[in-house]
């Protein structure tokens, strides 16, 4: 599915989105999900300088740090949207944070083998209309709070 513009931000409508960490999740199969930063996450974090993720094999629970990002010399956590075991890192994308910033849907950052997928998908925003509505609302909210520029 192509990328659609919602309130000035590119959005892939066929992905699931974690409202807490501004991440997208693609369910590749019942035993594999791909995760990346969404366009609001990259825009609100500032100019990304560094990205790191925990190594393959590590078991992570939803809400725990899956990695960290650095922008403007500020280091902050990337919180896991889904519990599971890290399968693979996209080292090429992680080595080029500016490319991730420029095209957040162009590359996944980490692949997980989920441990509670069906249950935790309920925490994510899914479905074309729901995703459109979620992004429009989030952009409006972030603009109101000054997190995104008008």
């Amino acid at each position: 599915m192509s990328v659609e513009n919602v309130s000035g931000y590119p959005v892939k409508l066929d992905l699931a989105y974690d409202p807490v960490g501004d991440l997208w999740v693609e369910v590749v199969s019942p035993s594999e999900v791909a995760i990346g930063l969404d366009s609001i996450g990259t825009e609100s974090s500032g100019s990304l300088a560094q990205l790191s993720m925990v190594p393959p094999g590590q078991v992570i629970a939803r809400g725990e740090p899956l990695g960290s990002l650095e922008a403007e010399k500020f280091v902050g956590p990337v919180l896991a949207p889904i519990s599971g075991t890290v399968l693979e890192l996209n080292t090429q994308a992680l080595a080029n944070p500016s490319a991730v910033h420029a095209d957040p849907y162009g590359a996944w950052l980490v692949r997980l083998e989920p441990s509670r997928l069906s249950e935790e998908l309920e925490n994510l925003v899914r479905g074309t209309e729901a995703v459109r509505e979620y992004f429009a609302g989030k952009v409006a909210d972030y603009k109101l709070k000054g997190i995104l520029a008008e």
Partner: protein
Amino acid sequence: MAAEQVLRVIDFASVSGLRSQTLWHAVATGVSQGQAPTLCFMRPNQAYVSLGYHRSLSEVDLDACHSQGLAVYRRMVGGGPVYLDPAQQFFQLILPMSMVPPVRANAIEWLLGPAAEALTAAGLPAQLDTRPGRMEIVADGRKVCGHGAGQIEDAMVLVGNCLESFDAGAATKTLAISDPLLLGAVERTMDRFVATPQYRVSAEVFKEVATKAYAAAIGLDPVPGELVEAELDRLGELDRQFSSAEWLEGPLVATARGARAIKIKGGVYVLAAQSGSLRAVLVWIEGVIDEISLTGSFLDQADLDAASAAVTGRTIPQAIGDVGEMFGGELRAALGSIDQRALEAGR
């Protein structure tokens, strides 16, 4: 009175290199668990090297550090490898995340403003440079205060080191740089753009004014304080953690290929780029090649010098256009390996 209704101020005075890192990390845990927002001051009683959370240990010359008796510690906040010594007054502001502006750039600007005000009161013509990719405190065009920031548990930490003077020679020796041309360019550029030793800075005035300015900025009354038991316990854990080889190694970070860039201050970088047998070491200042040295096996030095003169004063895209197929296209390729977007963004 509830814990968050005052600004706790702790002046740790002179502490070891290790404690000049672990103390404020322990305070971050305390603030995260409900202790009052806290402003700390301290000064290391020995020189050492501190590495930003994401930076590769390979950027530091560990053998050189050990031979000079310099410890190396990894911090939990951002920025590059830095040389720290007793001529630097440290300060740290630690706030619950709920008190911090949600936009990181805005938060850093808000949190650095009082430090710039205090440095001015202490004797420096300090200004906060808020241009994109800069965001640092400068005086007379030179960097006078390093900083880093991060979220530790549920607290935001801003750390700063006011540079009363700076030993560029000692700092350069801690970096893993084998190329003498690059080494020389880094030291010269640090000397040119870091610290303003011609001004006398009063640390006591800095601390006094910074306390008032930070208290006013966050709207809380400053109250002298000390670490609580839980923070002391955490301090012991952090002392062990920061001394371990595993922590020093750092997180798994992929690194991009291409030109090596050493940031001296916002808008000022020393770069080394290579293509084939041609190597370029250049100083990039505010978008322009300020100086460049070209070397290469089997290449005529007079031709290399002429090319250096031709691209000095040009932007990198201009220089790439100018050099065309010179040296079989190697100079164009070397210059093309420089991530100009990263330099402009201040990364």
